[in-house]
């Protein structure tokens, strides 16, 4: 140290005072700075932050529209909306999604088999959206949720209108059902329209008329806290909360007569198959039964994966729509149509007779096409051939007509093409022809049309397949003598707000015009003979009817029987047995209803299928038709 310094109190005090005053100056500057910042935020930027603060507090809560109610043709409610509890999950509030899902499973609120589906569902929606994952909770589930609520952040219990089908499985395949919106659904819909709506039509009318049924969603701004929970408004009128009322979807009036449908399904009890009944004068489908059926309420409630698998793994395939997606050989039910084609092409007269020895061979061939009646029908004319369902007559007729003319005539009456019914998923079946075979098979040797293939088409076998709806429609065509309409399930739409009814007129298809109109009566008479003639195949089933029925039985081969074997129903496993078919309309002179019935593996059409059609006719024709 160069010099020894001693403490100089006066100097130190002076220096301290200087510096303290300087510090006081800095304090003043800092105080000004803070004040300036507060002024900037609270005065200059005030409007901006007020807006942000309001935006913080108002959250848009969707008000889902009420789905349109569905009535049957008599005005009975068959799909309605009832209040129900549902669980919804908001991802951004759930914290750790996996933990929450795990807890839901543990508390029995989520089936473990559904875990993956729900996870995917939640992740596919926006993070602030409430995604419904368990619809229509029962009381026990609500109680369990209440107990564990605090452990389930982001899981909300909401009361929503839920779809309910009061008739349960009756008519389920026509009506369809709604279910939770899946990721696949999201890819084809406008998400905005479904904000707040958890379900979408999955099949049947519910799907086909989704646009009409859905309605227009509304919304309401609610005051929420930072956790998104609604809270009471603080001050009076400090904020205008906006809202828009939802508009309910349109109501549908179906052509289905749900009580007639019930009759058909009860008549089918325990069997697999399909029943379709059409009003020939409009194309209205009164009965659309595919059995076994299922309870659509299960889907509306949010079916668990295990329950769904139980349905899909069921060998009876309850979810399979046999009416429009099942294609079967039409069998002998098309014999009246074949006869009509023969008359129109003038290759046969009604009075022409043939001798039926029980089998038929093409000229120059030893192959025997067997008749269902081993000993043969003897000498039959056209009416006899239809009445007794003589195969040999139609083998011969088919061979005479040739496959092209058969194809043209049958295609004209709707075979090989979907009928165009107003629900999706319909199949067209196959109306075979040489041209069809070229496209359907690969390899030249497989593409050649053989005369023998024409022969069996004559009895509705071979490559020919049809849906039960096609058969019903073709039967309606016979009933109206050439007029036909696009089959439909919905005949009116109602706006619930105004009550305005939009009736949909029947949609006529190009009529089938015959060169000789009397041919219609020839065919109809032959079909009446089926149910009333001395050897009519459906005689038993129509005994005692108060009206006349024009019908035709059919038995479609599932399992091919060898040339010399005798078909023995008892020996063949149930699932290899023939399908039983019956088509009919009544009353024959002024038809009100055309019916097609299929009983899978039912055996003979006369014994099994015809009584089912009779039950429907009785229910419909012998009591006053509903208004």
């Amino acid at each position, binding site marked *: 140290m160069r010099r020894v310094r*001693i403490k100089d109190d006066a*100097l130190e005090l002076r220096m301290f005072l200087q510096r303290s005053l300087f510090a*006081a100056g800095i304090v003043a500057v800092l105080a000004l700075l803070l004040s300036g*910042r507060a002024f900037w935020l*609270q005065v200059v930027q005030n409007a901006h932050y007020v807006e*942000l603060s309001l935006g913080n507090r108002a959250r848009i809560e969707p008000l889902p529209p009420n789905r349109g109610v569905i009535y049957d043709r008599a005005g009975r409610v068959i799909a309605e909306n009832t209040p129900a509890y549902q669980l919804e999950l908001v991802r951004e509030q759930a914290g750790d999604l996996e933990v929450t899902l795990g807890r839901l499973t543990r508390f029995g609120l989520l089936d473990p088999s559904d875990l993956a589906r729900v996870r995917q569902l939640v992740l596919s929606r926006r993070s602030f959206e409430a995604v419904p994952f368990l619809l229509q909770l029962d009381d026990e589930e609500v109680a369990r949720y209440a107990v564990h609520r605090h452990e389930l952040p982001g899981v909300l219990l909401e009361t929503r209108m839920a779809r309910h089908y009061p008739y349960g499985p009756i008519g389920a395949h026509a009506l369809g059902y709604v279910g939770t919106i899946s990721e696949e659904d999201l890819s084809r819909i406008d998400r905005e329209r479904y904000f707040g709506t958890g379900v979408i039509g999955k099949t049947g009318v519910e799907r086909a008329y989704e646009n009409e049924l859905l309605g227009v969603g509304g919304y309401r701004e609610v005051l929420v806290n930072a956790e998104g929970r609604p809270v009471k408004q603080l*001050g009076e009128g400090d904020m205008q909360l906006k809202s828009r009322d939802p508009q309910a979807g349109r109501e549908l009036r179906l052509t289905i007569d749900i009580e007639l449908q019930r009759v058909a399904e009860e008549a089918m009890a325990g069997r697999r198959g399909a029943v379709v009944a059409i009003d020939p004068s409009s194309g209205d489908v009164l009965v659309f039964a595919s059995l076994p059926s299922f309870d659509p309420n299960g889907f509306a409630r949010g079916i668990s994966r295990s329950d769904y698998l139980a349905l899909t793994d069921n060998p009876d395939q309850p979810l399979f729509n046999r009416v429009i997606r099942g294609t079967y050989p039409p069998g002998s039910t098309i014999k009246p149509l074949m006869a009509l084609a023969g008359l129109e092409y003038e290759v046969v007269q009604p009075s022409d007779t043939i001798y039926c020895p029980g089998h038929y061979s093409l000229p120059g061939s030893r192959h025997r096409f067997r008749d269902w009646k081993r000993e043969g029908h003897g000498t039959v004319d056209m009416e006899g051939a239809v009445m007794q369902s003589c195969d040999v007559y139609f083998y011969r007729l088919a061979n005479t007509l040739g496959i092209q003319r058969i194809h043209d005539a049958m295609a004209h009456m709707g075979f090989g093409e979907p009928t165009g019914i107003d629900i999706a998923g319909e199949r067209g079946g196959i109306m075979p022809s040489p041209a069809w075979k070229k496209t359907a098979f690969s390899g030249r040797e497989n593409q050649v049309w053989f005369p023998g293939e024409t022969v069996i088409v004559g009895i509705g076998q071979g490559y020919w397949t049809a849906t039960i709806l096609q058969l019903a429609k073709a039967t309606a065509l016979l009933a109206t003598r050439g007029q036909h309409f696009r089959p439909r399930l919905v005949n009116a739409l109602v706006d619930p707000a105004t009550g305005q009814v939009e009736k949909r007129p029947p949609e006529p298809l190009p009529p089938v015009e015959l060169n000789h109109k009397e041919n219609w009566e020839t065919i109809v008479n032959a079909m009446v003979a089926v149910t009333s003639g001395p050897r009519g195949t459906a005689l038993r089933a129509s005994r005692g009817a108060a009206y006349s029925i024009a019908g035709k039985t059919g038995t479609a081969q599932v399992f091919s029987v060898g040339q010399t074997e005798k078909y023995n129903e008892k020996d063949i496993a149930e699932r290899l047995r023939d399908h039983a078919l019956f088509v009919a309309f009544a009353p024959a002179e002024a038809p009100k209803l055309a019916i097609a019935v299929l009983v899978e593996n039912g055996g003979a059409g006369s014994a099994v299928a015809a009584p089912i059609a009779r039950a429907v006719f009785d229910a419909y024709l012998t009591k006053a038709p509903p208004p």
Partner: protein
Amino acid sequence: MMYGELGGSRTRRTVTGMARVLGALRMDGMLLSGLIAVSLFGLFVLWSAAGDNTALWFNQLVRIAIGFALLIVLSQVPDHFLRMLSPAVYVIGLVLLVVVAFAGDIGKGAQRWLDLGVVRFQPSEIMKLAVPMMCAWYLHQRPLPPALRDVALVLLIVLLPVALIAEQPDLGTALLVAAAGMIVLVLGGLSPAYLLGGVAVAGAAVPLMWHLMHDYQRQRVLTLLDPQSDALGAGYHIIQSQIAIGSGGVFGKGWMNGSQAQLEFLPERSTDFIFAVIGEELGLLGLFALLVGYLFIVGRGLYMAMQCRDAFARLLAASITLTFFVYACVNAGMVMGLLPIVGVPLPLVSYGGTSFVTLMAGFGILMSLHSSRKLVG
């Protein structure tokens, strides 16, 4: 004439009577009034910020009582006793910091707390007072302005505990402790050349500091620069508190009516972010009122410091006063988006016992230092 009117009034008698009591208690009436006023203001705001949690409010009431009790007790301690104790308090505090580094409880991811069985406390709080005490103690024996060697030693006294606290990690407290020590050094006469040199060195050290910072600390700095970059994460605090203050306007939304605070958008609303509640509910006027209260306390504190009889008392008193204002600035700056988020409570207002009690201890010491001058001539 006025004097005469007052002379006979009860008011005058009461005031003089209270002054006599305070004098006997070696307390400064004006500073005490300022502290009581701001504390009551704090309780008023806390009632709203606490929401339904009235227990929290009563907790704070108890702590305020403890704080004022400590203020009274410490103001009775003679200043030479405080001076004598300074090295011991500093060393004990340093030891406790080392202990907490190895055996402390982890709260909110940082090791700050020492559990003494009965109470849990943060040794870093002691350092808020121990460091300026130690610096003042060291410098008052030396001729001022301090020589380079003394400056270096004081820096060592400051940086040792600061490093330990920063390592906990509690950057906010570390900076405040450093500030308390540095204020002593600057007021003690640190030559402006050193001061500027120090600022330059500190500026040069920024990249190094950046390198040494924890990720979350870096994030806080980055978030300050652009809060929207992480609006729901680290930026959330800044955005929501600015919305709260900004939407309050001049007059505020009214006590208990701040939507940001009451609807829980504002995080930490009863502790570090209570400043935003004031801004939202009481508006610019509320913030000004608080600021005036602070300035009154700081002004009175500085005035008292100037009256102190020796360097130790002067330096310590001024440091306690100015550090108090630094707390207020850092908290307000952080809540208003001027400074990064560091866990510094709003002095005398934020919920939290340790901070309040430490502040009151500081002001108790300040009163003791001030009143001691009268005893010696």
